[in-house]
């Protein structure tokens, strides 16, 4: 007997015993013939829903798209169905409604009670439901939980009366499993018959829509499948724990070789924990799904499912890599928090660059600025001098601290416990704040923990941005303390973990343009009047890696 057959025989030993067991129709001990619920849905005006070939329903984006009204209200009919596929006329009870995906806002109608409908003689017809946040194939669910909702202000529900009403040894919600909620007036449970509707066909959200066209996704903590067929999703960076995609504007037919732009809010970080297998910069992604998450203010797609539809390396002979031109972050937009966040949010997860030469700076038309990006000149592991003084009377702190930084002394982890204590009035918090107030200062422990350091685009403390150059092997930012970098390109990440949120993460050494050692800064900038061509920078052929996780 082959190994496979032996395995089959072993399997059948268990399986046969199981399959010979009976198939019972007892419905939780309740005398009812209701076997399932049938859920039918129509548009609010009674017309039919779109079929697979029809234009899908629009997305309301949880209110972000007020123009979408047709995707918000529907008529639902729920029927109790018996084993013979006929309506169970003896069923009189509640069915709880919900939708997946999305949120059921309200149920309205003569049989509505909260988010429940009351079936009489086995049916509740044409009850209006209002929904939001639905997308893709959405289904309406109905469940008989044995739930009899009552207003506790009027009547003490059986599931909150401290009495074991059904004598099963359990008292009230949540201990009695037959209590659906605390305001359930029945401890006897339900048939748990259930049903779902045919899918309501909504459009899939694009990356900008999933970004909420702003700071927060309307689908936070929800699983989404993103539109990737019509949209052109290009991989712009591979990280150790995921990758970035950019939703690129369509190619202009009149200028097919021209520059491409990323759609506003069209960048997205896809967090996959580990180095994502089988995907490379410039690949086009044809399928993308996962859970939208706001991670400390950074919108990302977690637990992704993705598929490369056009691997660039297999097509490279047919033309150059077509990534969108990185957006230039000018010092002017960083002048205030409002303008900065308005601009940077558009490019969160997208390709940006800083540096270069700025003409016509804000408020000074005709003037030409050479800016570049200057690495913080106060940036090092040594501890600054901290002088403690008694706080003046009335101050909310007992002590105040005078902090004196030096070029290599910007470490605010004063007690050496590995992190900065942000408790108000603490010396470490004061130190960190003083460092932030000085645009030339980059707090050291932040660099030690996550590799971010500060760079200056203008004189204001706001006109700074964090850089992370961990992917550039030979670059030690402490050796470039106070130095000018002509251009820095990378993807834009956002974490609300401190006073500085925005970080440009370089992708490879080509994203970092450096002056020669000892070179005059003006001459250096003149050598690089324009940013480097993106072309094939940072593209690297990658192959699928194995899951080789360890047992310990």
């Amino acid at each position, binding site marked *: 007997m082959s190994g496979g057959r032996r395995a089959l025989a072993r399997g059948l030993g268990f399986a046969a015993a199981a399959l010979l067991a009976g198939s019972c129709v007892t419905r939780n001990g309740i005398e009812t013939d209701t076997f399932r619920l049938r859920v039918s849905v129509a548009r609010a005006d009674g017309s039919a829903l779109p079929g697979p070939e029809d234009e899908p329903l629009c997305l309301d984006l949880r209110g972000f798209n007020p123009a979408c009204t047709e995707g918000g209200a529907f008529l639902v009919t729920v029927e109790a169905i018996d084993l013979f596929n006929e309506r169970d006329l003896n069923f009189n009870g509640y069915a709880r409604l919900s939708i997946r995906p999305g949120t059921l806002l309200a149920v309205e109608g003569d049989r509505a009670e909260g988010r429940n409908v009351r079936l009489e003689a086995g049916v509740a017809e044409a009850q209006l439901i209002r929904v939001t946040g639905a997308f893709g194939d959405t289904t309406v669910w109905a469940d008989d939980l044995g739930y009899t909702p009552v207003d506790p202000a009027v009547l003490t529900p059986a599931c909150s009366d401290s009495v074991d009403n059904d004598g099963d040894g359990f008292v009230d919600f949540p201990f009695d499993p037959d209590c659906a909620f605390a305001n359930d007036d029945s401890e006897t449970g339900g048939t748990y018959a259930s049903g779902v509707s045919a899918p309501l066909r909504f459009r899939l959200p694009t990356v900008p829509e999933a970004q909420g066209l702003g700071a927060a996704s309307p689908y936070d903590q929800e699983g989404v499948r993103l539109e990737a067929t019509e949209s052109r999703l290009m991989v712009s960076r591979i990280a150790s724990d995921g990758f970035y995609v950019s939703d690129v504007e369509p190619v202009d037919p009149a200028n097919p070789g021209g520059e491409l732009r990323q759609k506003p809010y069209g960048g997205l970080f896809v967090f996959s924990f580990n180095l994502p297998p089988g995907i490379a910069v410039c690949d086009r992604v044809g399928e993308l799904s996962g859970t939208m998450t706001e991670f400390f203010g950074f919108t990302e797609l977690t637990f992704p499912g993705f598929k490369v539809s056009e691997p660039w390396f297999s097509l490279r002979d047919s033309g150059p890599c077509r990534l969108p031109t990185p957006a230039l972050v000018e010092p002017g937009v960083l002048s205030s928090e409002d303008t900065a966040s308005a601009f940077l949010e558009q490019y969160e997860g997208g390709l940006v660059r800083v540096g270069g030469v700025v003409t016509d700076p804000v408020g000074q038309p005709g003037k030409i600025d050479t800016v570049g990006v200057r690495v913080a000149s106060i940036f090092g592991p040594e501890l600054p001098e901290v002088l403690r003084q008694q706080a003046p009377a009335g101050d909310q702190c007992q002590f105040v601290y005078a902090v004196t930084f030096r070029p290599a002394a910007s470490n605010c982890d004063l007690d050496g416990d590995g992190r900065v204590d942000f408790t108000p009035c603490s010396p470490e918090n004061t130190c960190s704040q003083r460092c932030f107030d000085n645009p030339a200062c980059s707090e050291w422990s932040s660099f030690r923990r996550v590799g971010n350091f500060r760079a200056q685009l203008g004189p204001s403390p706001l006109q700074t941005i964090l850089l992370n150059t*961990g992917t550039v092997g030979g670059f030690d930012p402490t050796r470039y303390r106070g130095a000018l970098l002509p251009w820095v390109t990378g993807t834009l990440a956002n974490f609300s973990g401190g006073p500085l949120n925005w970080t440009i993460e370089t992708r490879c050494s080509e994203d970092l343009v450096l002056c020669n050692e000892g070179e005059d800064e003006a001459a250096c900038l003149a050598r690089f009047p324009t940013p480097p061509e993106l072309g094939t920078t940072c593209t690297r052929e990658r192959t699928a890696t194995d899951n080789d996780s360890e047992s310990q």
Partner: protein
Amino acid sequence: MLAGLALGGCPEPARTVELAGQVRLTLLHTSDLHSRLFPYDLQINQADAKLGLGPVDRVVRVGGAARIAHIIGRERARADRALHIDGGDSFQGAPIFNFFSGAAELRALSEMGADAAVVANHEFDVGGLNFSNQVSRWATFPIVAANYRLDDPAVPGSSQLARVLSPWTAFNVDGLKVAVIGMGNLSSITSLYEQPNRLGITPLATVDTAQFYVDLVRPLVDVVVFVTHLGLEYDEFMIRNTTGIDVVLGGHNHIVLQPPQHVTDCDRVDPATGEHYIEVPSPEPQAPGERIEYVRRPCRPRDVVLAHSGAFAKYVGRLDLALSNDPSEVGAGYDPINGFEVVADQYTIFPVTEDTPEDPHLVNTLEPYRQSLDALIDLELLVGYAPAGVSRVAPAGGDSPLGNMVATAMWLRQGIQTDFALTNTQGIRADIPTGPVTLEQLYNTFPFDNSITKMQLSGVEVQELFNFNARRSASRGCSSQAQIAGARVVNDCLGCATAFTGQPCATDDDCGGSDRCDDDGRVCQARACATDIYIGVNPDQPCAGDDQCGGRPGSCDLGSPDAQGQGRCGVPIDPIGNYELATSNYLALGGSGFIVLKKNTTQFDTRVQQRDALIDYMRQGKPCGYSEANGTDDGLRACSEDAECEEGYACACTGRVAPRGDGTCQSAGACEGASGRCVLVRCRDDVAAFHRRTCNQARSQEAYTSCETQLNPCEIGGESCKFLACVDERLGNFADGRQRMVGR
């Protein structure tokens, strides 16, 4: 025989059902319980907070089998058709496993009424024989793994494991026939791919095996469920390359997929015809040793639901499936061979928190184990106090604070004291939360009973060791797979170019041994490597930065600065030098692929457990607030009242402390003659709260008051904090960049 598997045997009412149309199936899913049968303290991170386990950063008591049993029972009662399926790795991770070898875990799952489970890697931690014995004795449910061939062809019937494992099982759930097929772990069992191996398991190809069993059971059942311990990526890979699976309940990654993924199966497309297909082994007979020929089988893509439900007894997942065999619901192209198809699904995750009632039956089942553990070991013993916790997460992908502390504890252990130490990152299983550090927490952090092995390595072998670590780290997101002490290294995940890099190649052999030939077989690619390896420091070469040690990255060791804040220059390894290494016996035996260590013939197992080394190392630490400058015997500042202490410290002495209404402690009166000592306020409060738990179990207010009076938690807190080790940077709780990662 299969035709004889008729349906019937229903008690009352005795009606036979032929299901048609829409039906519901509920799958209750637990996975990776890792012996967390009793509730434990956990500092809540953001992911857990979003899933409802507790407020972020707060330490809360989560988990516990009796709570899980309550949820399982409740949700079974609230479901139409329900099965409880466990995703494996119920063994290992808490002291109860160290003392009872899995008996309690299997009894708990049986008591919960688990319907099936898959076997996973940690089930074999005490060997295959132990697992089969424990299953035979305690498991009341089938344990499945289709991808292990267990019989030794030379000695049929000899496998102990074959007696307790089956490839699949099936259930008739109210008329719905459900097959559950297991896929055991392949990636994490040491030496699994060596033949023969210690377990007598021959691993089978994932996709081929999965499709074989799907084809086998499809005609028999309505729904095909896979319970796997392959890991997320392999779950997806398996789904995409097979057809006929309805649901996959996965484990191993310790993650919650909320909501579950929908992965399309039958994913390959013929570009010429646009037809989808999978590849299956050719049915034509093939000669032994011949490469398997594959043929294409056309199929229709379907969405397969993939759920993972977390780990460490923190969550129970409930997956509700709306199934139908009605072609009008299932859609065009419905193939009746697939039985019932999933038309919709919804997933609920239930956090296992203090608000969850405990199932009394399971409490009773576990009570003897609890008492035995109490008699065997004082798990509540305080080892230290961690003012800010200790994280096992490496901030830059290299060394982590907890990793450094563990490696240092091995390196400096009395009687071991080697040149450097190395242990595997994944062997450190949990952070140490902020607050009092108990023996139980250290078991949870370090569950494996690994001992420390010493061995001699040449400089060349040290390079080989770190090269291997760099390569392994590169494949894991450039996150180091080892934690070290006494050494410094740069792991270059981008690879070190050689003379062969970029040269044409057909196989790895063409690339000179260091490079590898890429998958398309075109050019040699540089592999990840270790550079700038330093072992030990030169005491005569103080430094403040790498530029004072020649400029190479990591050459200045600032981890233990002297009084002037100066570090020391590291000593580069000498290829013909001799270095003594302390590592775990797990790695020494080739665990996690460290074959470079396995082949070493100078090994000496010290029998000192890594966990014990860490405990002893911690207990040697000084209390928070210690300074020689304080001029006292114990190093703490002498005081009479709080005002004489630094901010955040209070003056503690016996009889001069009282609880506030909120449970924190306040000094009450002066300590006579400066007999008090300044202790960390948070330490006193937290240790008091820890001891107050005893009183919280009191059944009446009177009993509570009596307990509080007699126990006096605030006084215990104050006195304990005078000697409890402060687990902070001075004890090595920091990441100092001793491992730099390039190319993250």
